[in-house]
């Protein structure tokens, strides 16, 4: 048996064909997984970007609300001690929603309250 680089004997056609078939099968089997993995990574990255943007939008909206600028839509937030059975106190304010899918939602009480 000669060395790896000095052995002049080749591969038979059959061996080459079998090897190529195996490589093709393996590659074919892995391609969808690789594609899906790349898709997941891309989607995750897009979601990170989306929520980074949504978060900054939310902070801007909240800062505006703190300055008395009209943002969001009118809403009420019920507050009731767990031990009480009467109707809740309804806190007036606005609900700010940011984003389309998987919205970020916050409630800002009205600045002017009796």
């Amino acid at each position, binding site marked *: 048996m000669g060395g790896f680089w000095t052995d002049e004997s080749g591969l038979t056609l059959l061996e080459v064909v079998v090897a190529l078939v195996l490589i093709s099968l393996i590659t074919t089997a892995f391609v969808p997984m690789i594609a899906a993995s790349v898709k997941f990574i891309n989607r995750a990255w897009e979601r990170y970007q989306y929520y980074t943007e949504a978060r900054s939008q939310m902070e801007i909206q909240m800062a505006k609300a703190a300055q008395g600028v009209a943002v969001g839509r009118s809403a009420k937030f019920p507050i009731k001690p767990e031990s009480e059975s009467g109707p809740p106190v309804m806190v007036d304010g606005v609900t700010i929603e940011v984003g389309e899918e998987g*919205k970020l939602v916050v409630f800002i009480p009205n600045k002017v309250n009796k």
Partner: protein
Amino acid sequence: MSIRSEQGIAAVGTVVMLMVVLSVLVTALWQYGMFQITAAGRNQAYLQATYLAHAGAEAARTAWLDKTADEKLEGPLARVYYSEAGGFQLDRPEQFLGYIDVMIETIEGAQAEYPRTRIVSTAHVSGISRTLSLTTFPQVYGHQDELNLYDRNSGRISGTNQYIDRYLIIEPGLENAELHFNPAIRSQSARFSARAVAFEKSIDFAQGGTASAWLVISGALRLPVAKTLVVEAEYVFFKDITLLYAEPSVDPLAPPAQYSLVLRIPAGRGQEIGGQRYGEVYFDGGSVAKKQFVWSRGPGILDYMLTGSGYEPEEIHTYEGVPLAGNAFYFRDGTDLLNPGPGQLIPIPDEKQKRNEAFKDLFIWE
């Protein structure tokens, strides 16, 4: 075994090795992708929970601030759900984004006199929880040693303070210890000065009709008996108030007497209305009244005693005729509640009352 071996299994073996290596790499890539997508989902739920927790804390803070001292919320609040269709609600909807649990608790500090209030809001979204807390600064009470504005046990007014840019609470400790002046002093003036002053107990300068003053000889000099509590603040919150006055008419030698409250605005504070500076005063009790006392002869020939007349307290109105009790007013610097002058007290419409402004720095996020 060489790659050029005529034994074909060598090529197959190499392919198998490639397959193993490729499998490991692809599996790693797959795992990484799954991890990233899961992390992004958790990040989404975390952010959603953060803002819901913020909503719960803000709403609870507003409700807490809007209550008077006796009605302050404490303990766990009922769970609130958020759904896109129904907004924030107590009833559990079929589909909802998440829910919020809020707890309001009092934290006793190292010294029992310095309690804080903490609002803990926890939101849950898709199995992810996020908790935010709002905590008050240690509350400043007028009876604390550094201020010593009144005696906590007796309620007797004892001092004056320099302006503090804080929310000052006036709360005599005992059940019947309303704030009152020292009867042994003929004339007394004290000033409580802060950004906002809240009287969490009633003020009764007539002490239920038992207030008294005893003038010996000096009564003949007709020097008025004047006791004045000056409240210097942008925002003032009162409960019941009873002031005292006495006319000299019953005896030509008896002096006039006034136990009054005067509202002042700290320098550079307040808001301008018609070129004058105004603060805000909220009369949250059921009565703002003055009670007439009378002078009577004491045991000595020139002794006079100031005693309860038995007259019913008279409700105080603005100069323009609006009752003070239960209402809120812009007050002009120097307003004397015993005798409000024209334009000194201007009713504040409900929609413009800004109680929360007085407390805007009371809570800090943790």
